[in-house]
């Protein structure tokens, strides 16, 4: 989860649905252009179902809302794990562009700095 589409990208990378380095981030993954969305990234190697959820809000609020929804629907805490995308290094600038709707620039930087941000996506 995140306030930007990096949540979807992180989920895809986690399940290897998108192998790092194989994609042209300037065009692929249409969901990267959406300001808020929930994507199903499929299952990871351990069989866990992985989703990416993002909306323009304080990440603490997103986490609180998810936990609230799951609790009022009596979904046990053991059934899920929430992970926030961490914005460090070059991801700070990429997420800034995503947050302000400048997805063209965010995509360009994702492609250009390909080797510099995979390990900081908070998922792997």
């Amino acid at each position, binding site marked *: 989860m995140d306030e930007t589409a990096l949540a979807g990208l992180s989920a895809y990378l986690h399940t290897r649905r998108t192998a790092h380095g194989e994609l042209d981030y300037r065009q692929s993954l249409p969901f990267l252009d959406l300001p808020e969305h*929930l994507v199903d990234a499929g299952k990871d190697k351990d069989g866990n179902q992985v989703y990416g959820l993002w909306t323009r809000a304080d990440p603490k609020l997103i986490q609180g809302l998810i936990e609230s929804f799951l609790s009022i629907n009596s979904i046990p805490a053991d059934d899920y794990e929430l992970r926030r995308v961490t914005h460090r290094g070059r991801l700070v600038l990429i997420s800034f562009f995503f947050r302000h709707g400048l997805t063209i620039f965010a995509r360009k930087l994702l492609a250009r700095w390909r080797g510099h941000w995979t390990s900081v996506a908070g998922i792997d």
Partner: protein
Amino acid sequence: MIVIYHCYGGTHSSVMTAAVHTGHLSTEGPPSNGDIKRLPYFDRMDGKDLGKLCYYGQDEKGNQVYIMGRKSFSESPEFVFRSLQKLYNAEQTYKLVNSARTLNWQMKLGGYISRGLGYKRIGLPIVLWGARKAYPRVVSLAESIKKEV
């Protein structure tokens, strides 16, 4: 059904509206300052529990009423809940209500001074002044939601 009133801090307009909805406050005329101050959660939340639901009570039809703080992101609760509802195919139905529309400038200013700056002795009387003035709007919102659910 679950009814969730949400506002900036989850401590003024949502508390008042939830209190009217659940019968903690009468719909006949504005309550006294003491009645408002004694309401659970009134002027007590400080925004640390963003998005967390606080149970407020039940209405006559058995609907559960909650309150929640969400800063200025008034659209996000609806989006997150709707997405997860679809994902889990959840049976529990809910209604999210933005109670911030009942706020007046006195409640905004007093709320900022009391909760934002931490000067409760200055901010709270201003909030209470505003809350009593805004009461007809609060009652009107709570009553319209009660009719809907």
